[in-house]
């Protein structure tokens, strides 16, 4: 019987089983070869390949160790873990010795004790003895080991040569490196290599002179370090320590919660001192992250207590007025009477709401419920509209469920990985690290991206094919892939015959065989040489497991939904669906994109992706809520904005989203917001949208509330309150207060009651409860009577819709054409250290890495325009103009320019256009025709940027009554 691993214990060396084996093994215990023997007289059985150290740890026999920890492979350098093994000479290191059948191990006797003390003595003789004042006091493995081996005195004296006066490196904003405390165990070096995959550290020199070096003996901040924190986590001493711990001291209690940044959904231990978070450490029990983290989740939590937080509700009559701080009650009744007033004047449908992919499932549920039951219409949409709506649509059409098909663990069994329009090492860093690990272990990689992302080539990673396509031509590319596979007869005919609808397939075959889809024809459109594409198609279709991972570079196009369906076609065609290692995997941007969609934030769909026009579905909700629900679909975000401009739409409630910054064509958004009579914004900060609002309801950060998030692998994970909400109410309580003021009664005392309602009304969530989430850490939906344990891999025997449906995916060029006036294509993306609109990360030290948005331009385009590195440039499109600093780089190809959109003053969306996906209106952020030119000396800012600054400054001032407010 193999024991379940305790996520709070360090077993010294990793398990020889993969995470998946571990799960299966626990269920059935079959197929796993085991070995048995004794350790200190106790018998033990472990999977073959387990180290003696780990085998002992499963019995709670904890062998002293310094250079070993279970997140990285054993190294065997410190020799403190030695043991005696019957029938063997000497004292082998238990971390590097595999446990074998019939082995009898002794971990303690006087001889071993003496040897260990000697080792310890050597370490301590070169170590400062300031334990009492050391930041790691109470959390130092060196200290623990000195205690464990019973070290009492040190014979060598400290006056010999030592490293005690080595200088500290404090260049990283979040942790320090104090080499005087280093024992050169190289755990940090190996963590950076094995866990994170960055290889930023090394051991420099040899013998006594050896020491840890970042980069080429430089400060951490100047090295390749991406500040993921893996080395800090692995360090057994105070050498690498979080600055927050140095300042505040060791935590005294902790709670497990879920990162609120990206769609990976990493589990963290929020470590606390009273109600102050002193450290976030990645939780080994987290099935999405398996103990790893990135710079955002690990370190960038300071925004939660940033002085810009607004902690009192505020109202005003118009956006020209000073804000007035009021009580919650007053804010609710003010907002409610305004909304009702508007409805009386302009009709029921003149108001609506927008829910957020950053809020919890429970909060999103309440927002859509308030709109449907309280507002009496279906004018509810979510910010997922602007990122992954094509995923929902495309996958629902073809496979039958609006979600990715795999769990993250699945990547460990992929043989070929195709990454398309996604940049995992920046946007989904922890998954990026897990993918890189698999690539180092031998999986082969195809990258489809106009830009050279890090995955294309970085230490120990090299894409076999980098297909640099022109933005906006994804569909042509994906069709050509399928064309080659069909032409070369590389498809899985059995799978298709058995699992997919025949008629649709035949029709699709006729379409895909057409010459227009040949790689040779496609080359003229995409710019991908036909030979490269053919080679990539053959690689993808080869035997073995091929997986596709894609991101916003697929969805945010006028043909986003078409590409998603094309991807699903490709996976079905090659039988790469329904088992581990394969599948169609959307990488979701924000933490709860999946959840906000699942929770019915759509004008045409009730929770669980069921049409609002369906009488039966509507009936169940009507019965449960005791109201009538409008059978007519409501407005999408873009319809809301258009209707506002037309004067038909007058009231809007926005929870935790910043449409003024994140939505395309800023001019149009601003005009719409200016036209509203009542804009209610609920957020942590006075965000860009709030500057147009008349009611401000302070929100609560993920640290201040209970709830759940659902990540990109459909994993529902708990968010736990570790400190009281700064403004007194959790976000769900705020929505409830407003809804009650509107006269529709809601009465929940805890989000678990909301989850119970979700489960009762949403078939895919039927068996989800807080009790189970507490016991199991997380659950992957669908979780109901048919799949009581949840569903890591979907579509195993059948597709959710029964048979898979091939969809004809014709390439249609975008309307956004390049012309003489606008000869370049601008595409947008993200960077590791900042998150989305940046409202949170810009209020942390993460700005150290990225304090402005920069335009990347290819040397040849730069040369044509006389632009050099650092020049201020003007970006003009059909919608507007903005100015940024430029960097000249070959990362982008000729005629493509690139920027991020994390800073509001950059106005990246001033230039993006109104074009959008034909099926879902997901905006075409990734393709804008532009012209770039150098600006004349004194034009730092464009007109818009100047107006923005004036307006923004004024609004900040209007909000600064007695409290100091700066944006």
């Amino acid at each position: 019987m193999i024991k379940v691993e305790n996520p709070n214990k360090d077993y010294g060396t990793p398990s020889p089983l993969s995470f998946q084996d571990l799960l299966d093994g626990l269920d059935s215990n079959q197929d796993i070869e085991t070995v048995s023997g004794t350790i200190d007289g106790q018998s033990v059985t472990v999977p073959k390949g387990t180290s003696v150290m780990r085998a002992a740890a499963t019995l709670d026999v904890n062998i002293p160790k310094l250079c070993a920890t279970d997140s990285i492979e054993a190294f065997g350098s410190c020799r403190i873990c030695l043991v005696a093994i019957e029938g063997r000479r000497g004292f082998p290191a238990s971390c590097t010795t595999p446990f074998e059948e019939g082995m009898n191990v002794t971990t303690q006797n006087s001889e071993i004790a003496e040897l260990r003390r000697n080792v310890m003595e050597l370490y301590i003789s070169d170590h400062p003895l300031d334990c009492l004042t050391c930041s790691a006091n109470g959390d130092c493995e060196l200290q623990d080991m000195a205690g464990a081996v019973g070290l009492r005195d040190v014979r060598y004296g400290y006056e010999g040569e030592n490293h005690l006066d080595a200088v500290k490196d404090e260049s990283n904003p979040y942790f320090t490196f104090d080499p005087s405390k280093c024992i050169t165990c190289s755990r940090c070096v190996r963590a950076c290599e094995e866990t994170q995959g960055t290889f930023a550290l090394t051991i420099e020199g040899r013998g006594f002179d050896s020491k840890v070096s970042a980069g080429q003996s430089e400060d951490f901040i100047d090295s390749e370090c991406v500040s993921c924190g893996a080395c800090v986590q692995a360090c057994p001493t105070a050498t690498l320590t979080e600055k927050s711990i140095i300042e505040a001291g060791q935590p005294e209690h902790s709670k497990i919660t879920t990162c609120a940044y990206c769609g990976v959904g990493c589990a963290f231990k929020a470590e606390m001192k009273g109600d102050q978070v002193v450290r976030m450490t990645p939780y080994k029990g987290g099935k999405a992250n398996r103990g790893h983290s990135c710079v955002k989740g690990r370190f960038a939590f300071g925004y939660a207590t940033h002085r810009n937080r607004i902690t009192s509700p505020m109202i005003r009559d118009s956006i020209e007025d000073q804000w007035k701080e009021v009580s919650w009650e007053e804010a609710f009744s003010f907002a409610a009477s305004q909304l009702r007033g508007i409805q009386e004047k302009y009709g029921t449908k003149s108001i609506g709401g927008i829910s957020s992919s950053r809020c919890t499932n429970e909060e999103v549920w309440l927002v859509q419920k308030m709109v449907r039951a309280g507002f009496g219409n279906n004018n509810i949409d979510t910010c997922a509209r602007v990122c992954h709506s094509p995923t929902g649509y495309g996958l629902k059409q073809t496979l039958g469920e609006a979600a990715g098909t795999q769990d993250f663990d699945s990547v460990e069994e992929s043989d070929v990985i195709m990454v398309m329009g996604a940049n995992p090492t920046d946007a989904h860093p922890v998954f990026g690290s897990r993918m890189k690990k698999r690539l180092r272990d031998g999986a082969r990689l195809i990258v489809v991206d106009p830009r050279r992302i890090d995955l294309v080539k970085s230490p120990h990673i090299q894409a076999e094919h980098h297909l640099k396509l022109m933005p906006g031509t994804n569909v042509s590319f994906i069709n050509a892939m399928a064309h080659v596979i069909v032409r070369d007869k590389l498809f899985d005919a059995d799978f298709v015959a058995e699992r997919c609808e025949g008629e649709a397939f035949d029709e699709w075959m006729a379409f895909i065989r057409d010459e227009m889809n040949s790689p040779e024809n496609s080359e003229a459109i995409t710019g991908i040489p036909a030979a490269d594409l053919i080679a990539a198609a053959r690689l993808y279709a080869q035997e073995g497991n091929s997986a596709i991972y894609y991101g916003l570079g697929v969805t945010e196009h006028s043909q986003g939904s078409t590409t998603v369906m094309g991807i699903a076609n490709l996976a079905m065609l090659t039988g790469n669906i329904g088992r581990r290692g394969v599948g169609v995997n959307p990488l979701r941007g924000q933490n709860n994109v999946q959840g906000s969609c699942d929770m019915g934030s759509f004008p045409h769909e009730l929770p669980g992706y069921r049409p609002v026009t369906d009488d039966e579905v509507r009936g169940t909700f009507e019965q449960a809520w005791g109201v009538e629900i409008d059978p007519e679909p409501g407005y999408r975000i873009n319809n809301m904005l258009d209707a506002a401009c037309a004067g038909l739409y007058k009231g809007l409630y926005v929870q935790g989203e910043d449409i003024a910054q994140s939505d395309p064509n800023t001019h149009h958004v601003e005009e719409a917001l200016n036209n509203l009579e009542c804009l209610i914004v609920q957020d942590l900060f006075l965000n860009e949208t709030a500057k147009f609002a008349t009611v401000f309801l302070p929100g609560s950060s993920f640290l201040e509330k209970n709830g759940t998030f659902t990540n990109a692998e459909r994993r529902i994970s708990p968010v736990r309150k570790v400190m009281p909400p700064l403004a007194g109410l959790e976000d769900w309580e705020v929505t409830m207060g407003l809804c009650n003021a509107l006269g529709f009664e809601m009465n929940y005392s805890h989000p678990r009651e909301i989850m119970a309602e979700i489960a009762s009304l949403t078939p895919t969530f039927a068996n989800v409860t807080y009790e189970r989430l507490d016991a199991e850490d997380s659950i992957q939906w669908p979780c109901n009577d048919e799949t009581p344990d949840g569903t890591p891999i979907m579509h195993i025997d059948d597709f959710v819709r029964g048979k898979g449906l091939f969809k004809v995916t014709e390439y249609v060029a975008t309307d956004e054409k390049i012309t003489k006036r606008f000869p370049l294509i601008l595409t947008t993306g993200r960077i590791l250290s900042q998150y989305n609109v940046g409202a949170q990360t810009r209020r942390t030290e993460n700005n150290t890495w990225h304090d402005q948005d920069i335009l990347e331009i290819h040397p040849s385009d730069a040369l044509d325009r006389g632009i050099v590195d650092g020049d201020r440039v003007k970006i003009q499109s059909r919608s507007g103009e903005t100015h940024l600093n430029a960097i000249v780089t070959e990362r982008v190809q000729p005629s493509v320019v690139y920027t991020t959109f994390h800073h509001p003053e950059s106005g990246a969306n001033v230039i993006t256009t109104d074009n959008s996906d034909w099926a879902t209106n997901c905006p075409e952020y990734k393709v804008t025709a532009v012209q770039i030119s150098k600006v004349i000396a004194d034009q730092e800012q464009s007109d818009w940027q100047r107006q923005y600054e004036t307006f923004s400054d004024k609004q900040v001032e209007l909000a600064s009554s007695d409290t100091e407010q700066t944006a």
Partner: protein
Amino acid sequence: MSRDTSQEAVLERASLRASVLDAIAANKHLKGSLLPILHDIQNSLGHIPSEHVVDIAEALNLSRAEVHGVISFYHSFTTSPHGKTVVEVCRAESCQAKGGRLVEAAVKAKLGVDFKQTTDDGEFTLEDVYCLGNCACSPSIRVGADIYGRVTPESALQLIDTLKTADAS
């Protein structure tokens, strides 16, 4: 790092880089090509320029840190050009026992550099060695090709001064 942007400095860097790229091209096809590349560069340039470690790393798909780790592990590699004269101070047991440390300290102070470093004027490079085979006469140092025994801090400094004046004339 503040870079010298004078024309000579730029040309100098370009020629160093060219040698580095040559060494990479000549060896890249080999299995385990890092060491041959480093040896080639060390031989042709007399050192491995830190600035161009990035080129080696990129060519072999390694990180800069990894290449740096290897360079610093082997005593035969250096990362800055050697001075005209190499001064090696022995730090092995016998010399240590006979007061080699005092010599070490005096020489370091005199030259104003640490081991493996070169004086700003490019005259001297200081190196540590472990036994010069001259233990009978410890402490020992080697200046250029000549080994000196029974060195005292004073005699070591004198030696350096002589070299300096010899050079100046």
